[in-house]
């Protein structure tokens, strides 16, 4: 096979596969700009004059915005908290490893292996007794805990890449641990911290087990809001598509931006 021919072949197969995988998302995007009648028309409408009415309708529903705000608040606050708790731990494990460090890291990883459904019952009852059901605080707590191991791991692998000499020089100049972290380590590891935060936000945003089970109208994020479209009386495909497009767009962009670092985070550094 000549290289020109194989080039054409990989072009056709590559784009074919990419478009096939992307098709459901593309179709959702298009459906969001159709009228409800066009959305369920068969044969499907390929050419239509795009309408913004679904997006307007979605925004006019006062509750859509509150669900979106819930998603933003829960993802951002839980991520910030997880980073805050994880930075000191990752710092000492990366720069002052002891003989227990390896075991500690692996143990932290193993806490991530607990299937959420295994602890659904106690979490539900604890949430009920502490008045946390359907509150943003409750979801923030769960999401922070859920992502803490991954955040520690990712920060640890990024911190390991910072040349220790720089921190050491700072230490010689009399920097205390706190200054060393805030003035030297954090700026140097900023790209790593950014991609760790992105991964954590993506995981929180798309989380759909705890949000479906522990939140209702008050604290429900977008995952739960979209699920409410599954009830028979909610079959408005064009509006569902518009709402879904809005719900996934920011995360899709985040995911595309951080795909490389994501591999590291998702495999706990086992694949680089």
């Amino acid at each position: 096979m000549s290289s020109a021919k194989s080039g054409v072949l990989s072009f056709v197969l590559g784009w074919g596969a990419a478009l096939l995988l992307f098709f459901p998302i593309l179709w959702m995007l298009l459906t969001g700009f159709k009228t409800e009648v066009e959305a369920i028309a068969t044969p499907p409408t390929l050419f239509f004059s795009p309408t913004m009415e679904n997006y307007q309708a979605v925004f006019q529903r006062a509750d859509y915005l509150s669900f979106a705000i819930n998603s933003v608040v829960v993802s951002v606050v839980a991520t910030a908290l997880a980073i805050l708790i994880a930075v000191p731990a990752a710092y000492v494990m990366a720069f002052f490893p002891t003989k227990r460090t390896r075991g500690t890291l692996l143990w932290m990883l193993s806490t991530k292996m607990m299937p959420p459904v295994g602890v659904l019952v106690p979490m539900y009852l604890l949430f009920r007794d502490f008045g946390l059901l359907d509150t943003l605080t409750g979801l923030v707590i769960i999401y922070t805990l859920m992502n803490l191991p991954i955040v520690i791991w990712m920060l640890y692998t990024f911190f390991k890449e910072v040349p220790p000499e720089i921190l050491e020089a700072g230490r010689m100049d009399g920097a205390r641990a706190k200054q060393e972290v805030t003035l030297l380590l954090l700026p140097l590891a900023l790209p790593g911290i950014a991609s760790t935060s992105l991964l954590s936000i993506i995981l929180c945003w798309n989380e759909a087990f705890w949000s479906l089970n522990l939140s209702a109208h008050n604290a429900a994020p977008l995952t739960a809001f979209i699920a409410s479209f599954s009830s028979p009386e909610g079959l408005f495909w064009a509006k569902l598509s518009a709402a879904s497009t809005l719900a996934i767009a920011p995360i899709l962009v985040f995911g595309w931006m951080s795909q490389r670092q994501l591999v590291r985070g998702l495999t706990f550094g086992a694949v680089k």
Partner: protein
Amino acid sequence: MSAITASGDVKPASSARRSGQKIRTLPFIAPSVLILLVWMIVPLAMTLYFSVMRYNLLNPVVEFTGLGNYQYLLEDPSLWTAMWNTLVLVGSVLAITVVAGTLLAVLFDQEFPGCGIARLFAIAPFFVMPTVSALIWKNLLMHPINGIFGFLSRSVGLEPIDWFAQYPMASVIMIVSWQWIPFALLILLTAIQSLDNEQKEAARMDGAGPLSMFFFIILPHLGRAISVVVMIETIFLLTVFAEIFVTTSGGPGLATTNLAFLIYVRALLEFDVGGASAGGVIAIILANIVAFFVVRTVARNLEA
């Protein structure tokens, strides 16, 4: 000195020690460890405790029942159906995503016009929240009357398929696979790209065709990455929930009820705290068998 630092960057700890600036690590690491410890132990202990109690939220009497919940659960055919469904779901999705992911990774490793953009399109499904992907597939694609698939089968003269009624499990498998193929692709592509170009070049010089390249150079190199994909996916696939929740609600009958959904039904719809907890313990045991291998693989990597 721990095994972690054996990888060559022994400097940090040793020089820290040399400069006599050994810092107390405990205050730094204690918050994380304590939080994770509580997060792990409290719910686990409660699950274990409830699993030996007769406890229904509708009934104020809570009493010790020993292994009663387990016995009841193990004698209940729906548990075995759910276990079987869980296995079928996990096994099928794993097979589909690993095979498709490997082929796609080889494909996207090639240079072709626009390959960067095509890669972005291909990994997009991974970032779609589960409730959205389930509803998009259920309505826009798989709906027998108004969906695209129905239209396609009618246009070639076939009866449209009522996916969730006729092939409920296959439908769920399709949706979940669509979400996880990009994950396998992303990890395996990264692994392929870390393969030495010189090695590939040398094999090509020796006259290796594309097939023998794949089987003798690429596939062996991917072995570890594939095992990582399998293990991490297994952890998540064991507890697939949202996709079932919005499409089939476990039905028809028990056709798509996996372990996660069964526990949800027991706990939050039937208020049977004891029975659900016993199910939870079974789920935890299953996950731990897998987790053991994940942790071992990652640990090996830490030492390397």
